């Protein structure tokens, strides 16, 4: 039995086709190279973010130290002057004070191991409460 002749399919413009294939490969390789650069940029960004977080922590610590050094004044809500009309016109401040001045939760419900975020939330609430008393 005679072997069957293989069939061939003619390709129109083979040179152009080859050129397109090579160009596609080139673009893909360029993209992979750029990915490496992208990873480097991301690493750099991570380093800067860590440095920024450290700086913020330092600022927070310095602020706490500043508060300790400042004289302790016993300011009670009754001693504070009433807010001026133009200050009342600032809804953002009023809203924030109102939101943050909720009574503290009972100690029993406070979770022993607070996360860093929860600590910061508490610190922020305390500062805003103090600010609220000053207004």
């Amino acid at each position, binding site marked *: 039995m005679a072997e069957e002749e293989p069939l061939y*399919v*003619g*390709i*129109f*413009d083979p040179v*152009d*086709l080859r050129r*397109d*294939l090579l*160009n*596609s490969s080139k*673009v*893909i390789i*360029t*993209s992979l190279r*750029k990915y490496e*650069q*992208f990873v480097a*940029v*991301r690493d*750099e*960004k991570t380093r*800067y*973010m860590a*440095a*920024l977080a450290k*700086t*913020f922590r*330092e*600022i927070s610590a*310095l*602020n706490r*130290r*500043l508060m300790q*050094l*400042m*004289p302790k*004044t016993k*300011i009670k809500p009754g*001693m*504070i*002057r009433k807010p001026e009309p133009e200050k009342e016109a600032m809804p953002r401040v009023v809203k924030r004070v109102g939101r943050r001045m909720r009574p503290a939760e009972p100690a029993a419900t406070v979770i022993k191991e607070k996360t860093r975020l929860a600590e910061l939330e508490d610190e922020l609430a305390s500062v805003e409460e103090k600010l609220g008393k000053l207004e």
Partner: protein
Amino acid sequence: MEKKDMVVYVKLDDYNDIMDIVKLVKERLREARHLLSKLSELKKKEEAEIEGWASELDSVEEKLEVIDKTLAEPEV
């Protein structure tokens, strides 16, 4: 004079410490500002990289389309 208007005195030692701390806070704030601007630059760089990828992907897709068309319509 109302209580709210009363002058509060700070010990001289504490005052000096306070001034030192304020100076330090200012330095740290400058540092933070610098780091933020660096981060902003890097973010722009990242975005540019992603946009570049998108256009490269378009280019490869176009080429593949041509290749596919060429292969799907062979010469008789």
